[in-house]
């Protein structure tokens, strides 16, 4: 059992690490868009798309980069008691409280699915069956939601990026849970560095 968990952890950690290491350069994508925005404004006509594009980039940056940030231990905890506990104790408590995190991410994920389904023209209340139906061909893509700006980009790509990010976050949260279980079982798993 622990073996399976540890392989899961290895895979998820590796995937999220790679993905995160790519996303971290998204910083320069945002920088480039914003610079282009100031250049085009000063020398040519201001562009329609820069601000919104930068917002999309930011969403991808923090959502998809989120799991890597968890690996790095960047997410603050209130450590009044926590910092004083032994590794074992931290693992025991975390292994329980991480379900709150998982729950939150689950609700976010579900909301994201619904919102993405809507952006693909599905107005019902069962996003899972819609996406399932898309695969089996029993559902069709309907009216595509557009951003209500003059640029009017389709919204589904950015919503899809969000659910991808939340999904990876969920995988990472589960990996953190497995790590705690392994720690409790006596395995030596390093804590995230700050």
């Amino acid at each position, binding site marked *: 059992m622990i073996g399976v968990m540890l392989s899961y952890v290895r895979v998820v950690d590796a995937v999220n690490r790679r993905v*995160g290491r790519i*996303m*971290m*350069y998204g*910083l320069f994508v*945002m*920088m480039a868009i*914003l*610079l282009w*925005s*100031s250049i085009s*404004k*000063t020398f040519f006509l201001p562009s329609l798309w820069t*601000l919104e594009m*930068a*917002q*999309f980039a*930011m*969403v991808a*940056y*923090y*959502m998809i*980069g*989120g799991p*890597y*940030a*968890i690996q*790095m231990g*960047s*997410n*603050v*905890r*209130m*450590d*009044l*008691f*926590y*910092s004083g*506990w032994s590794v074992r104790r*931290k693992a025991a*408590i*975390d292994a329980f*409280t*991480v379900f*709150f*995190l998982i*729950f*939150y*991410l689950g*609700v*976010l994920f*579900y*909301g*994201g699915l*619904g*919102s993405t389904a809507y952006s693909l023209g599905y107005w019902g209340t069962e996003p899972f069956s819609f996406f399932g139906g898309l695969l089996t061909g029993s559902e069709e893509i309907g009216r595509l939601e557009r951003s209500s700006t003059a640029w009017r980009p389709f919204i589904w790509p*950015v919503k899809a990026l*969000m659910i991808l990010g939340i999904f990876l976050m969920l995988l990472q*949260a589960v990996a953190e849970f497995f790590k705690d279980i392994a720690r409790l079982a006596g395995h030596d798993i390093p804590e995230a560095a*700050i």
Partner: protein
Amino acid sequence: MSQENIALFMFATMLLLLLTGQRVFGAIGAVACIAALALYGTGGQDIPFAAAMKLMKWYPLLTLPMFIFMGYVLSESGLADDLYAMFHVWFGQMNGGLAIGTIGLMVLISAMNGLSVAGMAIGATIALPELLRRGYDKRMVTGVIQAGSSLGILVPPSVVLVLYAMIARQPVGQLWLAGIVPGLMMAAMFVVYIWLRCRIQPELGPALPDAGDVPRAEKIRLLGAGVLPLLIFAAMMVPFVNGWTSLVESSAIGALTAFFAAVAKGRMSWKVFETSTRQTLGISCMFMWIILAALGFGAIFDGLGAVRAIDSLFTEQLGLSPWMILILMQLSFIIMGTFLDDTAMLVIVAPLYVPLVGALGFDLIWYGVLYTITTQIAYMTPPFGYNLFLMRAMAPPEIGLRDIYVSIIPFVGVMVVALVILMAFPQIALWLPDYVYGK
């Protein structure tokens, strides 16, 4: 349950969950979701995600990674080393001079980054070992670095003021300008405190007779180090204040300028680049996920009518005067700040307080400065404070937890005095924005 009780219950649950040490955003988000599902009925499950759409449109948050990156470039590339050397030779010979110089260093660093993290990192890696080696008192030094670095969010650029600006719907430019004089005033008050303290107890900050033993020309040359931060500051602020570039564009220019400054000084190694980029992701993600969760929490809180309940509690039921209410709010902010995360506190509590402050007839720009100083205090006070947390992580072993806790006491005292002065004399904050934007 009445709405007040639900609100209280939500807060209490969140606090309890925070105390378990689970990640802050997870704790806040989970309580938001539980409340949404339990109390909201149909469609409640969509609110946490709707917050993500709202967050996406908060375009000023694009400045966050930019300012964070600026800070990391500074601390990782060692651009600040020269700055430190400058203060060393110029102030080293007086009692407490190095500590005073460190405050100066922190002010300059504050002008080049939007958070206090960079100041903490630079302080703990450059100044701290140096000061300890020169026989400075460890508590004095630890306090100086924590207090000094907290100026990062008061002196522009400031991420906290950007966040406040979004919530209070106030112009960032004016808020930033409003932070300058109080920031300098507070720095000056720190300096006065250090100077006095070291006059009374010279052993806390011994003078270094050798510090100034460098040729005059060298001394002058070192002053040049101070020019760079001012250039970076100007490259960002001048186009912004003049309206040539927008806020988010200016932040990108600032980040790029800091980057090129490091390149020009030959300090931008691959390692520096990689570390700065990676750390920027880490801190930005932390912020964004906390804000995301807190926005969801806030919307649900709002939907329950908690805002109205609190408003009527303050204004009608308690029947307090505007100043009493303001003081109560500041006190409650300080208390919450001691154990809540500052960002969450801002996103959740400020939407309740800010409209009330406005309705009571106070200036929201001025209040932004008060809020920021309160946040600075929150950063350093146990049980939970971000700077506190960094200090514990970065301090050498000879500095114990007790030292860290005790070290901040006098500085927090100074900050409270600054807060009171600003409350009594709003013009200290307001004259600069009034002057520049010509109200």
